[in-house]
């Protein structure tokens, strides 16, 4: 029945196509932008939401810098750690060389042979002590943790080789494939052997935009001074209180250093994802605005058509159209315009998606997004045309005889 009605509606539409063409173009652009924007937003949201592998909500960090000539790094860090570890609510604390997810950290290249040839494998490493695993909240899945007596003393020159270290599963796979990594040997840039003693399930490293963010290694070393960076893990819900008390205590406990920052780890994570979040917010805003403008355009076209055809609508009513017939006329007309726009927009969306994926090495546009966008615009069109269509149905049939 509907399809039978379409032909005359379409031929009438084609005779007055200027407005319809403009609105269809608007729909097309809206669809192309919508689909690609939602796709990009989805990727950003996924990126921000990736598991960190760490107990990120309950970790904070402390940085301090010794400045006095008689500043004793070893003594100060020992005192700080023992104070931190003694606080109720603190589960573990460690001195470390870098802050995960912060954008700052150290990277090293590992090689399969002592000759140090070929590409090597990148490792984002963190110096930690025997509390490192516990402090990060990462899960050991094979091998063992460091013993306290294995932790190398501080050494700014890195002259001492690291005999055993812990890797993430991702790094293990990059180094050794699917083989069991524990006990395997790899070589640092100087060709010195390093043996894997443990494997942790997962941990994100320093740089959120790095495609190898999961290739992390933990090295048993006391980070050198005079700057000290501590990671502290608390019991759930205690972090903020402990941040405060740590700040109070450490800023006065040792006059030969200054306390720099005491902040939660998720502060740094959020800061690292700021650009991604801004992009997502921007795209959502633009898309919402475009959606509103498109709905307004459809609404305006339908309203214009209804006003233009007042007498025609009255005549149709006079010769037998029910109110529902009038509503359907305008809904079908609108649907035809939206569909033309949606078809054009789908082609546009695929084109834009393809060139975006070429330009930014993004994965190709998922067709589900296109289907979703098409449905969304169809729905937008019908919602926007509903009120004018209802208004058309209210036009009295007597308009046909009363207007000259």
């Amino acid at each position: 029945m509907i399809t039978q009605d379409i032909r005359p509606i379409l031929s009438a539409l084609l005779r007055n196509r200027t407005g319809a063409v403009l609105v269809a173009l608007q729909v097309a652009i809206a669809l192309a932008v919508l689909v690609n924007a939602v796709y990009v937003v989805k990727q950003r949201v996924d990126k921000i939401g990736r598991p960190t592998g760490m107990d990120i909500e309950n970790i904070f960090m402390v940085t301090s810098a010794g400045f006095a000539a008689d500043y004793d790094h070893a003594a100060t860090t020992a005192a700080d750690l023992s104070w931190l570890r003694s606080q109720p609510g603190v589960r573990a604390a460690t001195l470390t060389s870098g802050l995960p997810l912060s954008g700052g950290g150290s990277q090293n290249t590992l090689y399969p042979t002592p000759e140090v040839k070929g590409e090597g494998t990148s490792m984002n490493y963190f110096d930690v002590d025997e509390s490192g695993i516990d402090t990060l909240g990462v899960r050991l899945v094979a091998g063992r943790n460091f013993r306290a007596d294995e932790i190398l003393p501080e050494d700014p020159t890195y002259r001492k080789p690291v005999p055993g270290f812990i890797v993430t599963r991702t790094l293990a796979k990059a180094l050794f494939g699917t083989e069991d990594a524990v006990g395997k040997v790899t070589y640092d840039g100087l060709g010195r052997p390093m043996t894997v003693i443990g494997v942790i399930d997962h941990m994100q490293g320093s740089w959120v935009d790095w495609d190898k963010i999961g290739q992390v290694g933990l090295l048993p070393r006391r980070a050198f001074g005079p700057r000290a960076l501590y990671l502290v893990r608390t019991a759930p819900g205690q972090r903020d209180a402990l941040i405060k008390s740590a700040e109070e205590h450490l800023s006065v406990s040792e006059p030969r250093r200054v306390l720099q920052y005491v902040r939660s780890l998720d502060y740094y994570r959020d800061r690292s994802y700021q650009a991604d979040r801004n992009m997502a917010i921007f795209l959502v805003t633009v898309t919402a605005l475009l959606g509103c403008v498109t709905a307004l355009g459809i609404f305006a076209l339908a309203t214009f058509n209804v006003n233009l055809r007042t007498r025609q609508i009255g005549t149709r009513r006079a010769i037998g159209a029910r109110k529902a017939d009038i509503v359907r006329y305008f809904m079908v007309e609108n649907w035809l315009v939206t569909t033309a726009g949606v078809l054009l927009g789908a082609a546009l969306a695929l084109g834009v998606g393809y060139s975006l994926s070429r330009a930014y090495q993004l994965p190709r546009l998922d067709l589900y997004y296109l289907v979703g966008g098409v449905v969304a615009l169809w729905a937008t069109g019908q919602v926007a045309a509903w009120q004018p269509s209802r208004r058309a149905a209210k036009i009295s049939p007597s308009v046909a005889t009363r207007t000259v």
Partner: protein
Amino acid sequence: MLAMRHISKVFRTDLIETHALRDFSLEVAEGDFVAVTGPSGSGKTTFLNVAGLLEGFDTGSYQLDGVDTSGLSDDARSRLRNEKIGFIFQSFNLIPDLDIFDNVDVPLRYRRMKAADRRERITSALDLVGLGSRAHHMPSQLSGGQQQRVAIARAIAGDPKFLLADEPTGNLDSLMARQVMDLLEQINEMGTTIVLVTHDPELARRAQRNVQIIDGQVSDYRPYEPHAPAAREPVPLAAGAGA
């Protein structure tokens, strides 16, 4: 049969009440050709709108072909309009975006007729009004008289019992007016009841019955008298207007 009894209809605006019809009673029998005349503002269009179910009324009763029309739903009224009534308007009211064929098709589609049925009716209606060869012209490509003939084709394509025409010749010159009148007579002879509102006494005289409305009431009611054959000078449809 079309029977109005004691109909009144009031238009209320902020300033005034207009009694467009007052205690208005009229019967139109099947097969009649009634011409309605009267001064401007007397209520002719209001009567026709009530008769054609385009407007309601305040008091009284109105039976259309045996159906009591008061209390009918909007859909039921639309359906009655579609099936029993053909409307012809002073300004033709063709749909400008549809060609002649599709214009005649409009009421048939609202009746949910099959395509083959519709095609047959459209063709024969257009043939009857002498515009069969113009089926795919647009209304703007036709003269006024031709447009009104298309409107007549549209009105009769659904084979209604009643044809209501509000000054159908008001926008036409006298030659075209006579063609339209000839056509209406021809349709009446085929059995359709016609109510024609006109200002033209010449045309009114050609009807079987004349009704005069003054101030919302039937003031003069001239019953059927067989009219003199001399009054009829049919103008050949296919000639003159260039159909």
